[in-house]
């Protein structure tokens, strides 16, 4: 079966800064992958390009065997239009470092309204789906609270439920615990651990939690200068890294 996500020779620049430098990357269906590496190495940009929050300057991204930024019209290949992008995006969900919950809606509405509006689910169905997911992340007693009244960890769990409500094939987690107070990290990681047991769900995580990455990933990708400098199973990358930069990075992280 073809990979769920393929990046081929992807380039992304911000002015003179080269963020992704001919990146090649594949993620298999159901695979749990952690992206690690120094800041500015392009890890978050990878997730943002897959979610179409950033365009790319070169190369190709495929989701589920289909080009993200191009589509077929007859026999010709043309730039993707909004309808194509929306169909592609529906396969992917994303959770952000800063949660980005909608502050004018309650927890229930944050999870329920998007699937009602975007998927056109009828209210009872959307509500049932939302309540089930809110319970899954352990916040059933907070359904009618506004995000401003919740802790960071609780907000992030709602954000995960909100993305899951679309039943995406791929979930992108962009440093989802980096904005949290240390004592709130655990509750969010527990939700991710639970999701990691979902056999069919593909998870791509950018994280600085090395212990966690090692625990739940099938594969670790070490990024540097917009490319993958080293990859492999957690045992290989953490125990016997072959790349000098990987070794230096892991040493620095362990000392912190």
């Amino acid at each position: 079966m073809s990979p769920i996500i393929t990046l081929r020779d992807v380039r992304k620049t911000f002015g003179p800064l080269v963020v992704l430098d001919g990146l090649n990357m594949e993620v298999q269906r159901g695979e749990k992958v952690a992206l690690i590496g120094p800041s500015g190495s392009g890890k978050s940009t990878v997730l943002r390009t897959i979610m179409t929050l950033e365009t790319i300057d070169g190369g190709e991204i495929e989701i589920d065997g289909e080009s993200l930024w191009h589509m077929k019209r007859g026999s010709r290949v043309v730039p993707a239009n909004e309808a194509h992008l929306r169909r592609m995006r529906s396969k992917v969900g994303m959770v952000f470092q800063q949660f980005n919950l909608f502050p004018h809606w309650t927890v229930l509405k944050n999870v329920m309204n998007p699937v009602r509006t975007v998927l056109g689910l009828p209210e009872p169905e959307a509500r049932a789906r939302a309540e089930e997911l809110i319970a899954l992340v352990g916040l059933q007693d907070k359904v009618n609270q506004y995000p401003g009244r919740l802790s960071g960890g609780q907000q992030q769990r709602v954000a995960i439920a909100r993305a899951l409500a679309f039943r995406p094939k791929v979930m992108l987690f962009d440093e989802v615990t980096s904005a949290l107070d240390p004592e709130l990290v655990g509750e969010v990681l527990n939700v991710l651990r639970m999701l990691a047991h979902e056999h069919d769900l593909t998870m791509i995580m950018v994280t600085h939690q090395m212990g966690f990455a090692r625990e739940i990933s099938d594969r670790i990708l070490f990024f540097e200068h917009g490319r993958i400098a080293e990859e492999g199973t957690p045992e290989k990358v953490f125990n016997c890294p072959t790349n000098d930069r990987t070794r230096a990075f892991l040493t620095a992280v362990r000392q912190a």
Partner: protein
Amino acid sequence: MPFDFEFAKSILPHLLEASVITIAATFVSFAIALVIGLFLALGLRSRFALVRRGIWGATQFIRSTPLLVQLYFLFFVLPEIGITMPPFLTGVIGLGAHYSCYIAEVYRAGLESVPKGQWEAAVALNYGRSRAMTEIILPQAIPPMIPVLANYMITMFKDTPVMASITVIELMQTANIIASERFLYVEPMTLVGLIFLALSLVASFGVRLIEGRLVR
């Protein structure tokens, strides 16, 4: 300076009647300013640099010239090139256009106060642009704008007397007519001041009530 209460009492009904015109002029001008302001704000976010610069230049020009001069221009100069409008219409267009430049800025600031992450979450959840705007961005951008807009309306209300200069028979002009007939200025002008004061105070109080509601 004697104050003739009998005279004041006799002219009060005329002045109150004229304040209806003043209030109407305020509401109509404000509505015009809200609509033009919206187009200006959208224009300032246009993809085309020419549109952005043109609109920026026009708003700077309108903000940097006196309202009175603009009204004179609309009322006395435009007829020379064949555009003649009745006084009230000229007045509300002039006042509305003038304030639209300030209101465009209020819209811009309101939209920019919504964090970029809200747009990104909307894209990630596959909202279309217009749905994201109406369901996610505007509900957050509008509440903080309301007290600011309401204060502009009160300022516009206090600027309506400039319309007297282009022969709109509003509160100020009515008082002027009464005063010049009798050469008695104390009572009409005092009453005009008091009517403006009373209405402004009521409106300010209203704004504060709304503000209190919006701040949760």
